């Protein structure tokens, strides 16, 4: 999944190819791939110098994708559910860098819930993307915490729990940037990515990104016609037909509602926020999310933004030079000071 080389240079003097990563090893048609493409496009169009980005992820198919973009950026594919903490520590190394994290719904909303909430509360300056497919892809199709209640998966039975709404969680933890999009809506994904990358503080981006392989109803799982006859399930979990990524066709305008059919025949309903929606009104944000949940549709767009709150780095009032460039003379107090200290020790 590399991006077609474009010789045209941006203001950073870089070609689009300077932003590419290694070939994707995700399934053909995986929503995660289109998101990686939009990250490349957004960084290219924002003239970001790749060396000035730090990439982070946890563990999962989604968490693999940081290797599929920005080869020239430092990055860390950390532990399952623990990207929040490693990123929080890493941003102190050189405060001039921007952090970009890619996680999954399992990685963030299941095992990573605690760390995610506290990262948000601290307003860690990071663009935090959740590639949300309601399932554990890499471990082959168990429920994640964002799975629909009542969803039935092979070998898993029916999901009895209420789904986690990542945007609602971010909002409850006082996120300063909360947005949702759909992997198939590349235009919106790119725009929101640009906004997020330009935001000072934590920017939570919940991107619905269907898993072509596992997010299927049991009854629909891998059904094929044998010969001329009717459909019958193929009990072959190791067979994954190559499918196309779902792309929203035509214009999807602000304020409108769009039903999207997924590979397994199920569908989701997206509602794009109106142009005149005010994303700075937190109580309104709660209201629309709560309402959308009742009406069982997914709000997309910039749901909430607050540009006033200091970031975690701001609160530490650090020296201007990057901490990781400081040397012994900066870091080791003079010998005299130790005498004073010893004197304090009675």
């Amino acid at each position, binding site marked *: 999944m590399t991006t077609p080389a474009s010789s045209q240079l941006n203001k950073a003097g870089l070609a689009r190819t300077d932003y590419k990563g290694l070939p994707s*090893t995700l399934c053909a048609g995986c929503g995660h791939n289109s998101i990686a493409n939009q990250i490349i496009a957004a960084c290219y169009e924002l003239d970001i110098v790749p060396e000035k980005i730090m990439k982070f992820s946890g563990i999962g198919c989604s968490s693999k994708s940081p290797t599929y973009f920005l080869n020239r950026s430092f990055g860390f594919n950390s532990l399952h559910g623990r990207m929040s903490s490693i990123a929080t520590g890493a941003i102190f190394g050189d405060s001039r860098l921007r952090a970009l994290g890619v996680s999954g719904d399992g990685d963030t909303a299941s095992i990573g819930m605690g760390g995610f909430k506290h990262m948000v509360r601290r307003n860690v300056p990071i663009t935090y993307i959740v590639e949300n497919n309601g399932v554990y892809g890499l471990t082959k199709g168990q429920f994640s915490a964002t799975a629909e209640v009542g969803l039935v998966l092979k070998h898993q039975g029916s999901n009895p729990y209420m789904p986690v709404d990542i945007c609602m969680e971010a909002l409850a933890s006082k996120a300063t940037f909360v947005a949702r999009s759909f992997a198939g809506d590349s235009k919106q994904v790119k725009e929101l990515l640009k906004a997020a990358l330009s935001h000072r503080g934590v920017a939570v981006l919940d991107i619905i990104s269907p898993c072509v392989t596992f997010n299927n109803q049991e009854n629909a799982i891998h059904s*094929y016609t044998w*010969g001329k006859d009717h459909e019958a399930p193929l009990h072959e979990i190791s067979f*994954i037909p190559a499918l196309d990524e779902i792309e929203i066709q035509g214009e999807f305008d602000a304020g409108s509602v769009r039903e999207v059919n997924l590979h397994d025949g199920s569908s989701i309903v997206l509602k794009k926020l109106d142009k005149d929606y005010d994303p700075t009104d937190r109580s309104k944000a709660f209201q629309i999310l709560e309402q959308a949940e009742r009406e069982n549709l997914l709000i997309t767009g910039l749901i909430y933004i607050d540009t006033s709150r200091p970031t975690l780095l701001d609160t530490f009032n650090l020296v201007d030079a990057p901490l990781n460039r400081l040397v012994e003379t900066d870091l080791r107090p003079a010998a005299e000071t130790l005498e004073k200290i010893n004197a304090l020790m009675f």
Partner: protein
Amino acid sequence: MPGKVINDFSLTIATVNGSGSQTANVTLLRALFKMGIPISGKNLFPSNIQGLPTWYTIRLSKDGHLARRDEVEVVVSLNPASFARDLASVQPGGAFYYADDIKLPIDRQDISLYPMPVKAQARQADVSPSLRDYIANMVYVGVLAQMLGIDMDKVKQALTFHFKGKQDPINSNFKVIESARQWAEQNLVKSDPYYVSPMDKTRGLIMADGNTAAALGSIYGGVQFAAWYPITPASSLAESLNIFLPTLRKKDGKANYAVLQAEDELAAIGMTVGAGWSGLRAMTSTSGPGISLMAEYAGLAYYSEVPLVIWDVQRIGPSTGLPTRTAQGDLTEINYLSHGDTQQVILLPGSVYECFEFGWKAFDLAERLQMPVFVLSDLDLGMNQWMTEPFAYPQTPMDRGKILWETDLEKSAGVWARYKDVDGDGIPYRTVPGNLHPASAWFGRGTGHDENARYTEDHATWEAMMARLVKKYETARHLVPAPILDEPAGAEVGIISYGSSAPAVEEARVLLEQAGGPKTASMRLRALPCTDQAREFIRKYSRLYIVEANRDGQLKQILAAAMPAEAPRFRSAAHSDGLPLTARWIMDAISSMEKIT
């Protein structure tokens, strides 16, 4: 053409992950098995879902050796990405089957080459276009059937079994196989020596993977509560509970068990401890990363004496490591798991058969000892197909351990103490919630407590409690499964192994003797702490080789710490690269050390 080699070679099929070759491979495996030929099937797959190379290796061994071999005589390649590597992997004199649409250079004259019209055959198949990629896999089944001499009835049987008798898929698949076989009959000339022919060495045996066996064993052990978090290679253990429990353990539609997918491993073990404390047969299953996350709760269970069973289906680490590769690398971590002084009880199943057996035994031990019992399997044992005796129904009644109910407390007029060593075996009595006797309740805690479970910071009481736990561990030594010993007269050297490394060790012993090496005695350890039989074996031999699939010789370290007086005679044959050990490697390792005696 050299003399035929029958039922004694390895066959590797190289395909693309996600292309659906599993049905084809298992069909081959089943057909061979039904022909009565001893076989094992190992799947080498990448840690992704679609598009990367994957290999499936079937070893046929008329002598019944089931361990992995490095050498492979017959290779089937359908994957351009691994083509060169696959070609190179064929033993001289071997056979190389490949999809004829792969137009890549072939530079070997020392093997037989068989192109296969995979795409063409698939196109003729009368299945929906979306199925073509899948059905293509049946082509090599047909070609191999013809070229190796696989009985087509058995192939049909295998398909029938796989598709649970549904005629549509059975026929569509078989048609493709048959026409591919015919094509081979008409177009290929056999020039390699590798053949199969019927034997009678699998009668009465079954094939299964260790995770399924472990789940079934747990079910026959009466598992009532399982909390888990998905992780390769352990997931299919809990998923097998989901598959089999509903049919085996529901009473008129109602369940007497609960399987719960937790939000992470911290919660999975926490829930399991809660269920064990409340009187249920409780288990969790995970792999290395999960074990690390469970460390804190494992310590609480050890010290507050809560029974639970923890399965660790090991993969190679440290850290995330290689999720789809095997190892025996969690032994030292678990032996010393959690902060402070702890002593953990560890079971080491060495076969799929024992995965079932220890599945139910682990509960008896945990409830008897009132402590966590760890069962260490691994990816090779847990996810690969092994030939085995049918699972044996538990020979002994359930041991629920020392539980007091209302009637017991009435007898004792409510006089009892949760942490008192009444019987001198270090194991106290317990009550569980729901016991309505007014004297039944006690308050569990991970903080210092006295015999009545009351909080105390008294140092003598602390030390006494900890000393009793040592006594309990000593009791455990006499309850855990004894090792499997093979001590031929005149053996000077002892070999100690455990878990999935055992088959390779048994084969290596044969090779060693054939190569004029020393006669060896063998002990397959099945549990820690060491039983008296195990200690005796260790005391007996002048040189002890400890064979294991890890880097640091973990069992050797544990035994040295436990039996320092014997430690100078220990020698480590440890090696870990993600693949199961081979007999050849073990034999080389031992003979090289033997020379330097």
